[in-house]
């Protein structure tokens, strides 16, 4: 597909600076028709800014683009779409209360009548092995199905270049297979795909070429099939990576015990928890996998105490505390780090000092007789920043000013610095660069080695396989029986996660 000299999109010297950061500096690369081209880089490497410029969402400060030989400078996404460039975002822009066809129509320039549109959606979904019923409410769809709505919305515009921003972060391994078959089919038909990811195995399996970005600059281009995942990672990070070190050790008494936990979701489109049971011993890490929206948020809320239940459903060190609130559970030794950093784990407009107080007040004794000890709070915030290598100009900085990875290090660091006996984290390394992710994983392992019981809820299977002792999956609000992580195969894990969510029929060529 490559090497014919024909070029669909050429980017030359693209540059974009924001105050304080250069997001892209002199970036050049070319994509041939039908080529699957990977943009690889850590978080903050400038991948998103780059594709936003190609999609007309951000105006470059310098550089040029050509599309099919003609100058290309989209002033807005509508112009980009007209010229055959489509994009599937990492975060879906769908209305849950509308059905599939209505959502598709909202994203189109000149939508046809609903009936025509519905039949076209059926047609396209059949052609590309992406089964989707146009009449279903988006709120009832799984994350994988929602992504299909976005993809089909793009395909209806008959794109020449399809940009996909981290498309597999919400999919099970089986769903990833189906998506890849669709993408290969598109590529065979001549549609070029610009594929953003930091998942190396995926890129090796799917992409024809890769452009690797680091701190806004192109540091390498390669054919990913010819490189090992480790090579790619080191090109991406620019340093040698060491996998987290674990030492085998004896487990202690059960620190966290959950039994028969059923909780209705606080959100209308959320997933209720159904009869969840597990226990975690001191010194042990339990991994809970699952595709987004299968009850992870609800499980975290139920464990952190933000949602309460019957006393005996949750026991910390043997004492029932299902009816206790977050601060009582902190007193009992449980700390939690929610997935959503801004707005849930941290208050965006408050300083790091104030955010340190947010969940650290109880265990660090930062409040006496109702009055806040700001000096001690500042010390605590300083400890977190230092201990977890949070890159910030100071602790007075608002949480929203930190990059995602740095804020995540702060949030996880804040919880782990409280000498907890039970740690619950949801998506500890989501959107965090490779070296920060490694540091966070190492910190979780260290805390377990010190005798804490750790529960890691994550959608990153590699992460769970790397650090957990036992493994379970959430699927539709139910938890599978935890199994020892050692010896699990990817297929077994996929089945625990619910297989392909009824998508098995998608491609008729299944072996």
């Amino acid at each position, binding site marked *: 597909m490559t090497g014919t000299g024909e070029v669909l999109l050429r980017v030359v010297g693209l540059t974009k600076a924001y105050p304080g950061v250069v997001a892209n500096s002199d970036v050049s690369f070319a994509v041939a028709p039908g080529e699957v081209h990977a943009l690889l880089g850590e978080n903050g490497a400038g991948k998103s800014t780059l594709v936003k410029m190609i999609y007309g969402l951000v105006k470059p400060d310098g550089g040029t683009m050509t599309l099919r030989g003609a100058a290309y400078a989209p002033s807005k996404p509508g112009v980009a779409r007209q010229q055959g460039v489509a994009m599937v975002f990492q975060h879906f822009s769908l209305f849950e209360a509308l059905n599939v066809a209505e959502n598709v129509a909202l994203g189109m320039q000149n939508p046809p009548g609903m009936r025509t549109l519905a039949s076209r959606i059926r047609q396209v979904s059949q052609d590309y092995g992406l089964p989707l019923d146009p009449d279903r409410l988006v709120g009832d769809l799984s994350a994988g199905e929602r992504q299909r709505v976005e993809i089909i919305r793009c395909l209806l515009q008959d794109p020449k270049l399809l940009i996909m921003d981290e498309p597999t972060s919400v999919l099970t391994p089986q769903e990833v297979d189906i998506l890849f078959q669709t993408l290969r089919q598109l590529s065979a038909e001549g549609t070029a795909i610009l594929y953003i990811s930091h998942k190396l195995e995926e890129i090796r399996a799917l992409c024809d070429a890769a452009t690797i970005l680091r701190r806004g600059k192109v540091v390498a281009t390669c054919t990913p099939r010819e490189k090992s995942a480790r090579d790619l990672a080191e090109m991406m990070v620019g340093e040698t990576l060491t996998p987290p070190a674990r030492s085998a050790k004896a487990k202690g008494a059960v620190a966290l015990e959950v039994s028969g936990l059923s909780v209705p979701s606080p959100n209308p489109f959320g997933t209720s928890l159904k009869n969840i049971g597990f226990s975690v011993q001191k010194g042990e890490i339990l991994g809970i996998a699952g595709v987004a929206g299968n009850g992870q948020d609800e499980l975290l809320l139920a464990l952190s105490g*933000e949602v309460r239940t019957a006393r005996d459903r949750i026991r910390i060190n043997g004492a029932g505390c299902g009816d206790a609130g977050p*601060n009582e559970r902190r007193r009992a030794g449980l700390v939690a780090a*929610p997935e959503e950093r801004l707005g849930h784990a941290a208050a965006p407009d408050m300083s790091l000092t104030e955010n340190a107080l947010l969940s650290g007040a*109880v265990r660090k004794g930062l409040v006496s007789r*109702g009055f806040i000890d700001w000096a001690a709070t500042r010390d605590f915030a300083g400890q977190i920043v230092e201990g977890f290598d949070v890159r910030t100009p100071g602790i*007075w900085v608002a949480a929203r000013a930190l990059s995602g990875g740095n804020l995540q290090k702060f949030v996880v660091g804040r919880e782990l610095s409280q000498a907890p006996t039970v740690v619950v984290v949801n998506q500890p390394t989501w959107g965090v660069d490779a070296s920060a992710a490694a540091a966070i994983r190492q910190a979780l392992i260290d805390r377990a080695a010190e005798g804490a019981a750790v529960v890691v809820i994550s959608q990153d299977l590699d992460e769970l396989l790397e650090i957990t002792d036992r493994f379970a999956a959430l699927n539709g609000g139910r938890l599978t029986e935890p199994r020892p992580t050692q010896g699990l195969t990817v297929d077994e894990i996929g089945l625990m996660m619910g297989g392909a969510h009824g998508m098995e029929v998608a491609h008729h060529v299944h072996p």
Partner: protein
Amino acid sequence: MFILEKRPTPSRFWMAATPVLAVILTMIAGGLMFAILGKDPFEAIRTIFWDPLFDPQFASYSRPQLLVKAGPLILIAIGLSLGFRAGIWNIGAEGQYIMGAIFGAAAGLAFYPSENRLIFPLMVAAGAFGGWVWAMIPAILRTRFRTNEILVSLLLVYVAQSLLASMALGALRSPEGGGFPGSRNLSQWATSANPELIGGTGMHWGVVAAFIAVIASYILLQRHILGFQIRLAGEAPRAARFAGVNPNRLVVLCMGISGALAGLAGLFEVTGPAGQISIDFNSGYGFTAIIVAFLGRLNPIGILLAGLLMALTYIGGELAQFMLGLPSAAIQAFQGMLLFFLLAVDMLGNYRIRLGFGRAA
């Protein structure tokens, strides 16, 4: 072309500077308006902002009025600001203010003409209680039945106004008033009077209470965990729940504090400057305090200054009507401009303005 750019961290300098900038812009725009009306803009601005305080002829009357008018505004706005910071919208301070006056006056009049010195403290407590009770209605309806506290508290203002009229005409009407509506004069009955404490300053117990409220609220917000929880609940409700804040408890607390302070303001007004319960006792302090709260950026010190500034524009505005023949609508427009400019330059705290030039596509 102007481009707005979000600041990574809110600018402390601009947070403090925007109210000053708003006042300056108001003076410029207001001056233009006065000029169009055919008045000397400099004289008009001077009459509004300078004469009430420093003109030898008017200052002796106007200067005490400043604290008399600012006191209740500040006291009420401080209470409201706590709720507003937590995202709890008590719009009905006017009603709570009336109820405080009715409860307090009734508690005192029940002992008329006793001269027991405990009566005034009792009236103060009853006034705070009256405002608190009136605020508890929307608070409990919200926490129990998830009604909207904005609507309920606002509508209760009209209920309170009707109660006020009925009290002035019925239960609390002065037996010696010759059938005219209105209670006995509380400011002329030594037991219940809330006199000027220092002659010529306008300082009465309500102003003292307002200053105490400013200081207490400053300490609460800066040093106390409750103040932190209030700010957290307003800025990031989910983070507040994560931090263990009980949202219902906060609603009851913030509504209660704002109601009690509004009730106190009503009590101090009815025993002092107003003197008696009458049909037209309330004068909109409860609503104006909402503007004062925002003008002061929901910050205690800011509210103190905003209350004084607001009082000044009222007094100066009256003076300008009287001296220069400016229509009262022009004064109201001038006050409106102040609020408009304040909200307009508000974004400078979070955004910076850049001069950008459209790039050729």
